[in-house]
C-alpha cells in the first residue's frame, strides 16, 4: 500500500509542478491519459479531476512566486514583473523546494541567474540577487554577543595584539564585481535605479538591533574583515597589519585603525574570536 501511496503522491507532485499546468503534465504521463485521472481523483459537474489538481498547481506556483518577490525586491525591480515571473518559473523547474521551511525556497536563485541568459543582458543581476539573499540570511543568523566598546575596555592594553576577533555570525563580507549595493539601496529607498558601476567592491553586511545594514568597504577595511571572516578569526595585531598594508595614507594608519575599530564595535560586526565562525561569500553563488 505504501508503494501505491508513494506512486500516487509522486504523480500528484509531477502534475502540480508541471511548468505549463496540469494538462501538460497529464500529456507527459504515458501511463495516464486525461480521462484516466478520473480513476484516481473524483470529479463532478463543477470541477473535473484535472481542474481540482489545478487548484494545487496554481497555489504552488503563485505561493513560491510571492516568496521570491518578497525575498528579491530589487531583482524583481530590475527584471520587471513579466521577466521575473518567467525567471521564477524556470528557477522552480531547476530548483524545486527541498526544505521544510519556505525560507530556503530562494536559496539557489542567485546561482540560477548566474547561468541564465539574462546574465548576458543584465550582467549584475545574479550578484544583486546574491546580495539580497545574504541580507535575508543575515536577518536570521545566529545570535551571539557582539564585541562592543565596554568589552574591549576589559582587555588589558598589552593583551590587545594577541586578542582574537571574528566576524559576527550575522556579518557577511561579500565580494562583488558590480556595485549592486547601490541598486539595492535605490530600490529600498523607492528611487530610480541605474546600472551600477562595473567595479570590484567588498560589501559588508551586518545586523544591529535586529536590523540588517550594508555598505561598501575600502580595501584596508576589506582586507582586515576578510582576515577575521574565517573560522579561526584573526588576532588584533594581524588585523592592524592588514589595515596598515592597504592604508591610503601611511601617516594616518593609527587614526584609520582607531576609526575602523570604533565603527566595528558600534555596529556589532565582530565577536570574541573564541566564539563562532564566518566565511567569505561570493554574491553570485
Amino acid at each position, binding site marked *: 500500500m505504501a508503494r501505491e501511496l*508513494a506512486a*500516487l503522491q509522486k504523480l500528484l507532485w509531477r502534475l502540480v509542478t508541471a511548468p505549463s499546468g496540469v494538462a501538460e503534465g497529464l500529456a507527459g504521463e504515458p501511463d495516464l491519459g486525461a480521462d484516466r485521472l478520473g480513476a484516481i481523483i473524483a470529479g463532478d459537474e463543477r470541477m473535473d479531476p484535472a481542474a481540482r489538481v489545478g487548484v494545487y498547481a496554481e497555489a504552488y506556483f503563485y505561493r513560491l512566486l510571492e516568496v521570491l518577490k518578497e525575498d528579491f525586491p530589487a531583482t524583481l525591480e530590475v527584471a520587471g514583473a513579466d521577466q521575473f515571473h518567467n525567471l521564477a518559473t524556470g528557477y522552480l523547474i531547476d530548483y524545486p523546494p*527541498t526544505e*521544510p521551511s519556505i525560507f530556503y525556497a530562494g536559496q539557489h536563485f542567485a546561482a540560477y541567474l548566474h547561468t541564465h541568459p539574462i546574465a548576458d543582458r543584465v550582467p549584475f543581476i545574479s550578484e544583486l540577487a546574491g546580495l539580497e539573499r545574504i541580507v535575508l540570511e543575515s536577518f536570521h543568523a545566529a545570535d551571539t554577543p557582539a564585541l562592543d566598546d565596554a568589552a574591549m575596555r576589559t582587555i588589558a592594553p598589552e593583551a590587545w595584539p594577541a586578542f582574537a576577533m571574528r566576524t559576527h555570525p550575522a556579518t557577511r563580507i561579500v565580494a562583488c564585481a558590480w556595485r549592486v549595493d547601490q541598486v539595492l539601496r535605490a530600490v529600498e529607498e523607492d528611487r530610480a535605479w541605474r546600472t551600477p558601476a562595473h567595479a570590484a567592491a567588498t560589501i559588508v553586511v551586518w545586523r544591529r538591533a*535586529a536590523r540588517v545594514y550594508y555598505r561598501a568597504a575600502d580595501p584596508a577595511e576589506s582586507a582586515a574583515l576578510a582576515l577575521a571572516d574565517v573560522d579561526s578569526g584573526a588576532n588584533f595585531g594581524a588585523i592592524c597589519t592588514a589595515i596598515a598594508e592597504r592604508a591610503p595614507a601611511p601617516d594616518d594608519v593609527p587614526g584609520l585603525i582607531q576609526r575602523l575599530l570604533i565603527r566595528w564595535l558600534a555596529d556589532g560586526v565582530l565577536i570574541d574570536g573564541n566564539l563562532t565562525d564566518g566565511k567569505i561569500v561570493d554574491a553570485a553563488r
Partner: protein
Amino acid sequence: MAGARAARGSVVTEAIAAHTPGNPMKRSDFPALGFGVGLRRPHYAEILESRPPMDWFEVISENFMGAGGRPLEVIDFVCAHYPIVMHGVSLSIGSTDPLNRAYLKDLAALARRLQPAWISDHLCWTGVGGRNLHDLLPLPYTEETVMHVARRVREVQDLLGRRILLENVSSYLTYVDSTLSEGEFVAAVATEADCAILLDINNIYVNAFNHRFDARRYIDAIPPERVVQFHLAGHSDHGAYLLDTHDHPVCEAVWRLYEYAVRRLGAVAALIEWDDHIPAFGELVAASAEARHRSRRALAQRDGALAARSIEPSAPREFED
C-alpha cells in the same frame, strides 16, 4: 499576564507528563487556554509595545526555526508574557518519504525553548521524493492510510515525548479509492495514533461545499475527548469551489457550524487564523471575543437542552439548532 511563563511552566510540565504515550488521553491533559489568535508579523510591534490582553497565541513553528535575529527576539518576549502553542506546516505526516529527522530535531529544540502548551501540525502530506510543495495535500481516506499515518504519528510523539494535535485540512480534491468519510478518517487516525485533534471548523465548511457532504455529520464522527483546539478562519468563494484563504472574517455560516461543534464537542480552546490581507490587531481581538461569546452561548444552549431532556423525554435532538 505578568508571570504567565512561571505559572504556565507547571501546567505545561504536568500536561507533558500526562501526554506520555500509554496513558489514556483526556482533553483535561491539556491546559484550557481559552481564546487566542495567531501571532503574525504585522502585529509584532503592537504586541511588544502594548502587551494587549490575550489568552494565548499560536505561532507557526517554521517561522521561529532560524538561528537567531528578530523572530526569536519577538517569540522570546511573547513566551514571557503569554501562553503559546506551536503550529507547524511541514511535518508532512502523510508523506511516503521517511520522516525528516533534521526537521524533527529543530522542532524538538524549538519546543524546549518555547515550552508550548501543545504542538500541532496537519493531517496531510506536503512533499515526496525529497521535494516540498509547501502546501497541505489530502490523503486517501482508507484503513491503510490510517495505519501508515498512525505509525508515523506515534514515532513523532515518541520523539517529542508528548501527544501532538493533528488538524483536518481544507481540500479541493478527493480520491476515488477512499473508503471512509473524512470525519471518520480524522477520528480513526487520532484513535489509532493516540493523538489529539485540532478541528478546523472553516476547513470542514470549505470541504463540505467542495465535496458535497454534511458538515454536521462530519463533526458527529469526531471523538470529543480528542479535540483540544478549534481553528476559525475566513475563506474565498471561487464559484465552483471555496478556497481556504485565511484572508476574510469568519463568515456567519462558519460561526454557526462552530456553535454546533461546541454543543457537540464541548468547551475547547479556539483560535482565529488570519494569514493574508491581515487586518489591525484589534479586529483579530474582536473575532476572538466573538468566539468566546458564541462558545458560551452554545454551551448554555447545550446545557439547557440537556436539562430539558432530563425533564421531558420527548425533547428534540440534543444538537439541533
